[in-house]
């Protein structure tokens, strides 16, 4: 990416959404447990191609990269993930509703 042409730098700053902070936290925790290194994340990001910069936000690219690494590390299977994503989606139409598990860990 170094040296490619690009437009002016947008210096606005968004406040991180909770879901973004959660992704960051899971990335740090899972790296700490040795499931992957920053190199695996970099490689997964590169494999998404240039396109990903147009279609996905920063933390969207990172949740995809962390997920890729976790699946490769065997922490959970793609099937596990698929089933769970269906269940999450079925809980409701908003992030708040979909995070609601009714489980005691809040």
């Amino acid at each position, binding site marked *: *990416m*170094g*040296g*490619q*042409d*690009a*437009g*002016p*730098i*947008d*210096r*606005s*700053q*968004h*406040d*991180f*959404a*909770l*879901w973004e*902070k*959660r992704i*960051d*936290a*899971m990335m*740090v*925790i*899972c790296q700490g*447990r040795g499931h992957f290194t920053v190199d695996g994340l*970099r490689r997964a*990001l590169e494999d998404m191609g240039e396109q990903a*910069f147009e279609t*996905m936000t*920063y*933390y*969207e690219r990172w*949740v*995809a990269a*962390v*997920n890729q690494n*976790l699946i490769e590390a065997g*922490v*959970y299977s793609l099937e*596990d*993930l698929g089933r*769970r*994503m269906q*269940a*999450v*989606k079925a809980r*409701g*139409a*908003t*992030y*708040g*509703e*979909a*995070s609601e*598990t009714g489980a005691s*860990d*809040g």
Partner: protein
Amino acid sequence: MPHDHHEHLSPSGHPYRKDDDVPLTYWQTMEIAMRELLIEKGETAAAEIARQIDAMDARSPANGAAVVARAWVDADFKARLLADAAEASRAMGFDIGPLHLIAVENTRDTHNVIVCTLCSCYPRNLLGLPPDWYKSRAYRSRVVKTPRAVLREFGLDLPADVTVRVHDSTADMRYIVLPARPPGTENLTEAELAALVTRDSMIGTGVPRAPDLRQPA
């Protein structure tokens, strides 16, 4: 209702984006599913995730600013910092974790600026989370080729007799710029000096604030 104490205000005082009310996106669905699976598989717990978020929120450029101010007042510390920035920062009580940290010094004729072209590596333990622009494609691609033009966008116009050094953290090192101490600060305390050190001055896209010329009575 979720009993998550992070719901209210972000540390900057702004409300979090109203996640709760916005339509659930595909990637948010993945985040929720990932988090639940990790907890169920025993890889983490909700409390650990919350603690990690708190730890991240607690880190701010103030840590880096304290290190810079110490280097300005203490020549031995400065030498230690330039030799092994991780060790020196730890000696001040900051948890650098496993980072390898290199401090690069701005002088009258050298100005340093940091980038990670491969992703967005950043000395998070000293400076907190990186700003959005640091992670942007525009910054990462342009600063290695036209750093002076980029710095001008940030309001920093460097003369021709200053050499610009760009540092691309391509591997295991993380970088922090040791900015030059502003003139007229001889009588300031270490804490007052730290207050002049901006985040951008430690990345290299800015310089420290000038001291307030109006002295309190």
